[in-house]
């Protein structure tokens, strides 16, 4: 594939300076795994950070030599000649702290106890992630990112960057994101967490020592989450009321195609994802609220931002609907920031941000062409 970044490998950075979290807890030492694609130019002005969403990681594009089927989660967007063009940009993907793909997280061994952190891993916020990512940027010699790009929870990190480090990012891409979670969003997250927390195999978060995994809870959490990622239309088109055996069997076994699909997705996810990480990620989503420190005034919160923004929403996204993106646009307009907003007509709900959609890609490509011209200038 000529438009793939090809064979990639993950790298690891160790940090020995303690990181103090918003919660007050701290980690004395931690590791981040990351991947990079493309070349950092001499001026170090062409770096793009990709922030991942709830279940994402550092493997954004390309594939591994020993695992060629393991293709990066945003390979359709990132690569030579693709909208995030690795011929022009130096692209950085990082597994967030608290994750389960190699960065220090609840399943990592706590050097102080010799046991996995488990329930002792601190609750983490989007601000904490930005802080940890900034240290990685320092390590890589990146003073200022040309752009920070993220969808969903990733978009929240991109926004948060512009508020904590206004002079370290020139362009923020907030895709399928929101300025905070609604009560309904939090409610869905809480049901998902309860599925995990009440699983008898959860053991208060220390299931590693019991050599079990709260699979039932995690798969229920994922099934629920997955419903919120799809649109009613997408489900109707893909599954409708389709029956696996073509008839009612009057049992609780899988009958409808949608049941089969959700259970498959739940099983697949529960086989590789860590339940504690899932809990942490959903809490980070719940806590995200840049206006929190400003009496709920988002205009004031965004007054710190200096970056240019591209905000993108998708018509059938009901998890973070287009209206939520307008709530991001409004404080930027209030603060007279450069902001463009595109509403993409897509049937795929929240997951649209991961799909290859002509208009979505045209917008990304046009905007990024301008960003790359700035880097060259």
């Amino acid at each position: 594939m000529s438009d793939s970044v090809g064979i990639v490998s993950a790298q690891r950075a160790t940090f020995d300076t303690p990181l103090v979290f918003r919660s007050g807890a701290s980690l004395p030492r931690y590791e981040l795994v990351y991947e990079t694609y493309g070349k950092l130019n001499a001026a170090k002005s062409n770096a793009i950070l990709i922030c991942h969403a709830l279940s994402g990681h550092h493997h954004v594009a390309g594939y591994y030599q020993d695992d060629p089927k393991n293709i990066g989660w945003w390979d359709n967007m990132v690569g030579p000649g693709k909208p995030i063009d690795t011929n022009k940009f130096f692209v950085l993907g990082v597994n967030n702290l608290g994750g389960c793909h190699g960065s220090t997280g609840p399943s990592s061994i706590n050097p102080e106890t010799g046991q996995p952190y488990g329930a002792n891993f601190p609750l983490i916020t989007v601000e904490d992630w930005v802080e940890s990512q900034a240290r990685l940027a320092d390590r890589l010699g990146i003073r200022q990112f040309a752009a920070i790009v993220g969808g969903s929870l990733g978009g929240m990190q991109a926004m948060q960057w512009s508020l904590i480090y206004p002079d370290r990012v020139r362009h923020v891409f907030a895709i399928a994101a929101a300025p905070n979670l609604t009560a309904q969003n939090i409610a869905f997250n809480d049901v998902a967490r309860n599925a995990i927390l009440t699983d008898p195999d959860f053991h208060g978060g220390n299931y590693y020592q019991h050599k079990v995994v709260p699979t039932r809870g995690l798969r229920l959490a994922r099934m629920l989450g997955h419903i919120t990622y799809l649109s009613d239309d997408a489900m109707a088109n893909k599954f409708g009321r389709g029956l696996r055996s073509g008839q009612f069997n009057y049992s609780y076994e899988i009958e409808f195609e949608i049941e089969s699909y959700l259970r498959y997705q739940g099983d697949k996810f529960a086989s590789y994802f860590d339940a504690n990480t899932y809990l942490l990620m959903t809490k980070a989503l719940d806590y995200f609220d840049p206006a929190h420190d400003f009496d709920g005034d988002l205009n004031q919160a965004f007054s710190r931002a200096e970056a240019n923004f591209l905000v993108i929403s998708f018509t059938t996204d009901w998890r973070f609907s287009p209206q939520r993106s307008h709530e991001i646009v409004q404080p930027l307009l209030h603060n007279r920031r450069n902001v463009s907003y595109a509403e993409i007509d897509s049937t795929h709900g929240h997951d649209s941000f991961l799909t290859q959609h002509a208009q979505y890609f045209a917008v990304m490509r046009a905007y990024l062409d301008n960003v790359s011209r700035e880097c060259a200038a």
Partner: protein
Amino acid sequence: MNNDATSLGIERPDFAAIAAWIPTGASVLDLGCGDGSLLRYLKEKRAVRGYGVEINDRDIVSCIVNGVSVIQNNLDSGLSDFEDNAFDFVILSQTLQATRHTEALMQEMLRVGREGIVSFPNFGHWRNRLSIMLGNMPVSRVLPYQWYDTPNVHLCTLDDFEDFCGAHRVTVLERRVMSGKREVRALPNLLGSTAVYRFERAV
């Protein structure tokens, strides 16, 4: 469609008229901004700070290519993203006739802007009158659509627009009427093909 935005800017006679009214460094909102060529023109000639609002997908991409900040939205659903008096000028260029809720939009323009500027094809132009007298809806360079395939739902004459302003507490500050690139002074409602108005809220 938008191969050379700058040359398009020079070609559109209303652009020069609009630019002449806008002082350097003004803040501008361009409603129905199309491919962003007017805003780009104003940025280059007048160093304005501005945003466009546009609904069409292809135009959104063109605006971004043109380096214009654009918000994708339908004008008829209002300008709810914008605060009161956020702009020095709110421009509606060759779009008034295609808006559904024209009254509400005019009020919104003067809510978010100190002054409004509209340009529109004059339906009272003699060619249009002649065309109708001869039995057909007019089709011209300024009104290039067939009656069954037109976005223009609220066409008006200069007199209609001025009556509208009078009835809606809108004060016209300046008017320029053109036929092609030529300014029209005599019998504007008959001889003008395009009109540009600058207006504000009546006090």
